[in-house]
Structures are given as C-alpha cells and as structure tokens.
C-alpha cells in the first residue's frame, strides 16, 4: 500500500452497544475492534519518521512500532512492543483522553481524522488478556524491598516497573480490592471490572507482587513503620477526598458526592441491588453538578439506574461554563448526550432546597455568562444578576473535583504537603521531602487522569530503581 493510499482509508468506527438498549444495562458501550477493523485502521498509519503521536503520550508508548506489528498480524511483537512502555494497555486504550494526547498530535488529524491509536491500543491489550502470549518477566532479584501505597493507576504502574527490575514489591491497599479509581470510580460500562482485575492479576502473578488489601496507611500502619521495614516507599494514594460546594442545603437527604455515588455503584455494585447488599438512592430527576469525566460517569450511571429500577429517566448536568469548555473526555460527553443527559450550561447552583422531611426537592441556580478570555485564555464565568431560578431535583450529585486523602500524613515525619493538601514532590523524579519516600499521581498533581498518574508511576519507578542501584554500588 502506498503512502498516498493510507490516508484515504476512513477512520474505522468502533462497534457500540445500541443507544437505547445500553441505557438499561451496565455492559460496556464501546465493544472493541475486530481483527479486520484493527488491521484496516492500522493500515492508515503513515509510520512517520519523527512520530509526533509518541510525544503526546505521557508514557511514551512506541506507537508506530506497535501499529506496524499489528498490521503485519504479528500480535506477539505488537504486545511486547506495547509492554516496553505500557503495562496496562487494555485499561489505557479505554480511558485515556487520546484526543488531547497521541491522537491530538497525529499528522493525519491535520487534514482529516487521526489514526484511532486508543482503539488499537485497546485491541492489543484485550488480545493479550485473552491469549497471554507475552508475560512480564522479572529480572534477577536485587534484594531490595519496596512498599507501594495505593493500587490505583500510579501505584500499579510503579509496582510493575519496579518488579520487572527485580525488586520485591508489596502494595498496600485500603479497600477490599486493588485498582483504586479504576475500580471505585470509572463505571463498568466504560471500563469493565473484569478487565481491571485481569490486567492487575496478570501482572501481579507474572511478577510475584504482594498485595495487602484492607490496609489504611496512617491508621492500620503508618509511613514511619513502613519505612522501618522497606528500602523505599512510593505513595500513590490518589485524590480520594470529595469536595462539597459551600452552599446551604448540602446535608439534605439525596445530596451525595460523586465519589459516594460512584463507589456505591461501581465498587459495591449497587446496580445489582438487592442481589448485592449496597443500595444507592436514585430518583426521578437527578442533577449532577460539574461536567468533567466524573460528572459524565455519574450522569450516565444515573440514567441506567433509573431505567433498571423502573424510574422515570431524567438526568441533568449543571455546568457553570458553556458547551465549549466542557472538560471531560470528548467521547464521554458525546455518549452522555447521545444517551439523553440534559445539559444545563451557564448555570450555577446557589442553594439546595429541601422539603419538610429533609429530602432534596430542587436546586436554586443562577444564570452565568462568560467574560472575554483572560491572559490564560480561559473565559471566566460570572453570574447574571437577578437571573435566579429553580431546578426541580430529588437527587443531587456533586462532581466538583477531589483532593488527596490526608490520612497518609499521619505519623509521616517530614513528608510535606502543599496548602492544597497535595504531597510536595518533584514532578520528574517523584522525590518527596522525606528521604526514601517518593510520590506520584493525583496525590501530587491533584485530580488528573489515569494516564498522567501512570506516567508519574513510571518516572518515579525509574528514579527509585536508579537510587537503589546507586546505593548498592556504593556499598
């Protein structure tokens, strides 16, 4: 095939579960490429000499190389190339915001549509989970013991890279299953828990990583105690603390943080209540405040729960900026609209209203307008005076961001944190203010993406390895 022919192949669509049907279940919406579609899509890649896509990837996946192997039908090579940089491709392929990363920089995107790199990555990841042709291999034992706190994207990535280098890794997880936000936050229909479990189990089995669940650092065991037993510690505890806006009425029955709502639904499987014990309160009109990925996830879970439990299905997303500023991943916004979520743009809540029994009955909101862009290019929303109005709602879900959980800082010596509650750490190396302690992911940056946390886990693992090996050569 010539270079001129490749861009003429249209970007291959991912088969999806039908729009109406999918509202009544939690099964995955995007169904994944078939081999035929994957090869067709792979054939669109121009194999640039200087691939701009790679520079857009926080973990530097060797994109042209894996795509090349894939289109030759050489899956073992595609997988081993993938795993040089990415330990969890089935997850990244599903949840990365590719439009702002690899695909955003693909040369084909300048004139037409970029190569569907994320979908190809997912294809490779899923193939490996089904066939297991390329197990991760552990180097000779270094005799070093490392503790990883938190088993979300940064912790797992860091643990896997360190184990590959021959270190003994123990992961401490506070919940009853590993995976962090991949398990409690991202819904089943976007990232099936079976995929998360099998990616993690596969890596953990190959590399002999130990995972201790039900261990809350700061309570069950402190950082000081861990340091006395391990050569190095990586903290990847994420940003799990929900924010509530400071307006009247947040404690009415029916107001929840998105964290609570999603934890009940995803981790505790409330959509299978009463087969599973944990319920989640739903209603006929659910209002989600915020428009990030977490808000989209909450809104789409809400629609499904209303359908499954036979309620009227009406879900609003209330966002103070406009359509153009929606911060979520494009595909999530698209899917939410397609499924029937109603968007109330340029709207800001002022007060949550309750009835005599203390249940939510609505939200008093104010209309907003956007000012001219400031020096950072962002248009600040300002309230329009006298424009207050009420939105009826029996459930209010607050998806307004999260901050790091402070428990880790209990008996943690000179581990410093910023006034935002994040750990002070070097962005490149992950080194904190305390010797032999590294940190990465949302605990350092505040709530961000799965892939940026994986990137941090990776860079930090490299620095920990370097540090321990230097220490070894000194002795």
């Amino acid at each position, binding site marked *: 095939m010539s270079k001129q022919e490749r861009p003429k192949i249209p970007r291959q669509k991912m088969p999806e579960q039908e729009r109406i049907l999918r509202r009544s279940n939690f099964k995955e919406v995007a169904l994944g490429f078939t081999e035929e579609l994957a090869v067709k899509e792979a054939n669109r890649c121009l194999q640039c000499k200087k691939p701009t896509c790679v520079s857009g990837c926080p973990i530097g996946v060797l994109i042209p190389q894996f795509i090349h192997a894939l289109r030759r039908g050489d899956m073992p090579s595609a997988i081993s190339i993938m795993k040089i940089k990415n330990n969890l491709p089935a997850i990244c392929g599903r949840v990365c915001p590719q439009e702002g990363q690899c695909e955003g920089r693909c040369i084909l995107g300048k004139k037409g549509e970029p190569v569907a790199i994320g979908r190809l990555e997912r294809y490779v990841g899923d193939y490996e989970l089904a066939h297991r042709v390329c197990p991760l291999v552990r180097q000779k034992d270094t005799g070093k013991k490392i503790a990883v706190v938190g088993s979300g994207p940064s912790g797992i990535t860091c643990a896997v890279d360190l184990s590959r280098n021959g270190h003994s890794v123990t992961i401490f997880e*506070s*919940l*009853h299953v590993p995976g962090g936000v991949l398990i*409690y936050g991202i819904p089943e229909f976007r990232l099936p828990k079976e995929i998360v479990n099998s990616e993690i189990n596969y890596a953990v089995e190959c590399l002999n990583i130990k995972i*201790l*669940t*039900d*261990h*809350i650092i700061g*309570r*069950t*065991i402190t950082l000081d105690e861990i340091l006395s037993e391990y050569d190095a510690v990586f903290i990847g505890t994420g940003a*799990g*603390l*929900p924010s*509530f806006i400071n307006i009247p009425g*947040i*404690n009415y*029955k*029916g107001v*929840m*943080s998105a*964290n*609570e709502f999603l*934890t*009940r639904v995803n*981790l*505790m*499987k409330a959509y299978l*209540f*009463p*087969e*599973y*014990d*944990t*319920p989640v*309160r739903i209603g006929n009109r659910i209002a989600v405040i915020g428009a990030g990925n977490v808000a989209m996830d909450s809104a789409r879970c809400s629609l499904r729960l209303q359908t499954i439990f036979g309620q009227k299905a009406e879900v609003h997303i209330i966002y103070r900026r406009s359509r153009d500023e929606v911060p979520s991943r494009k595909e999530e916004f698209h899917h939410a609209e397609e499924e029937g979520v109603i968007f109330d743009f340029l709207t800001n809540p002022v007060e949550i209203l309750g009835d005599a*029994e*203390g249940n939510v009955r609505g939200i008093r909101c104010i209309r907003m307008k956007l000012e001219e862009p400031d020096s950072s290019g962002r248009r600040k929303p300002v309230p329009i005076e006298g424009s207050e109005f009420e939105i009826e709602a029996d459930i209010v879900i607050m998806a307004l961001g999260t901050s790091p*959980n*402070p*428990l880790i800082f209990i008996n943690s010596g000179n581990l410093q944190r910023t006034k935002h509650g994040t750990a002070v750490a070097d962005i490149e190396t992950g080194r904190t203010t305390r010797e032999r302690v590294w940190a990465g992911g949302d605990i350092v940056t505040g709530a961000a993406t799965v892939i940026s946390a994986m990137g941090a886990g990776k860079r930090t693992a490299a620095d920990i390895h370097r540090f321990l090996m230097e220490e070894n050569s000194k002795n």
Partner: protein
Amino acid sequence: MYKIIRKEILSDTIKLMVVEAPHVVRKAEPGQFVIVRINETGERIPLTIADYDREQGTITIVFQEVGKSTKHLGTLQPGDEISTVAGPLGHPTEIQKYGTIICAAGGVGIAPMYPIARALKNAGNTVISIIGVRSRDFLFWEDKMRYVSDELVVCTDDGSYGRKGVVTEPLKELLASRRIARVWAIGPGVMMKFVSLSTRDFNVPTMVSLNTIMVDGTGMCGGCRVLLNDGAKFVCTDGPEFDAHKVDWDNLLSRYQIYKKEEILSFETWKHKCSSDTDCHCEGKR
C-alpha cells in the same frame, strides 16, 4: 479472609464476635471502629471495636441485629470467615485525667463504651457509668462495666432491672449534685441527643460517638457527613467522636432514614433466599 474465633449471644438481638484481625489489632485504641464486609456481595458496615487482644491478634465486635447485614453476620459461627475487616478507623478517644467523668451508654452502645471507660479509669479518672437498656433481657456486660467504673447505675425502660427510666434521669441528678468534668455518650441517636441537651444546660463538655451511614470509612465517600455548628465534618475521618453540643441532631437523625426502604427490601430478599436454600445453616433455619 478473617476467621471468627468465638461467638457469644449477649441478648436476643445483640451478639459478640471475636475475629482474627492481626493487622487491625496492632494499633487499635478505644473509640476506633472497623469496616466489616461479610462476603463478596456484602456491604461495608462500620462497627465499633469493643475490645482487642494484641497477643492473640483478635478484635471483639458487638453488634445489634437490625438489618440484613447485621442479621446475616449474626448467623455466622466460629470457624466461619468474613471477607473484609479494615481498620482501625477514626480518631481514638482522647484519654487523659479529667477528674470525675460520666460514661453514659444505651443499648448496644455499652460495648464500645467499655474500652473507653476502662482507659479513662486507668488514666486516673473517677468513672461513673450509667447504662440503659430496654429491659433486663437486653442487659449485657454489667459486670465488666462495674469492674471499670467507680460507680455504676443501671436503668431499664420498663423497670425490670435496676432503676426504671432512661439514662438522662440519673445523669441530670449527677450533673446537678456533683462536679463532673466531662461526659461521654454512646447509644442510639435519640439517646445521645437527649444526653447532649441535658449536659448543655450544665455546661459540661460532652463527647458522643456517632455511627452514621458509611461506605468506605476512609474519607472517600462523604456519606457519613454530619453538620456541626461550624460546618460539615466526616464521621469516619474527623470523628467518630464529636463535641455533642455542636452537632445538628435533627439532621443527623433524619439522615439515618436515607436507606430505610432499601434496608427492608434487602432483608426480605435475604430472608427469602435463606429460607428457600436447603444448604443454609443459619440459625433462623435451625
């Protein structure tokens, strides 16, 4: 998995279990709690640590069977295993020498009060305990409480044992006649509310241990939030003990009702499954 070592039936609906949880016991202190999940389909419920044995690596939980999870838990036997025991969670009770203090406990609240009273006694306080139950049949740990208290008052609602009436009555008499440095109260929400109202009149600092709806127990969900007069706090990470005089009791009591309907459905479903399952070994079946 965490093995149940011993089980004791304290009253008709209150059961005690000693559970192997070596990771929890290392740091467990009076006032803290654990999150328990029975099995794969179970919910995460907070239960206060009633006692612990660091040498044996076990903790004691005491619970009242009210809904599906606690009733199900009550059917388990020594040798059975529980899927999750996570903790210890929450801040321990602030133990120091205050002087003469009162420990007021209602119903199942007697269990978590016991280690607190013991620690306060060991710290040199004069401990007056008031424990209240519905009737004689619901009373447990009277001897244990007596052992860690300088004085003990037992009340029953129906007068079938000890003094007839609720704990606030002897409490008010003590507050009026003695110099009380501090009061702790653990029990049903309504009981804690009225203890709080009583001690407020006498301006005696009062701590209550709140048991709210929770999911993770680590600060992640915020379902446990309680309104204090200086803002909302999380029971799991900021508590479970709070200054009783700051608590918005009506909001707290109203929030207990959030999942009432679902709790009944969950219990009915389980009971039905249990009675149709020939392999079920629960006590209801026997």
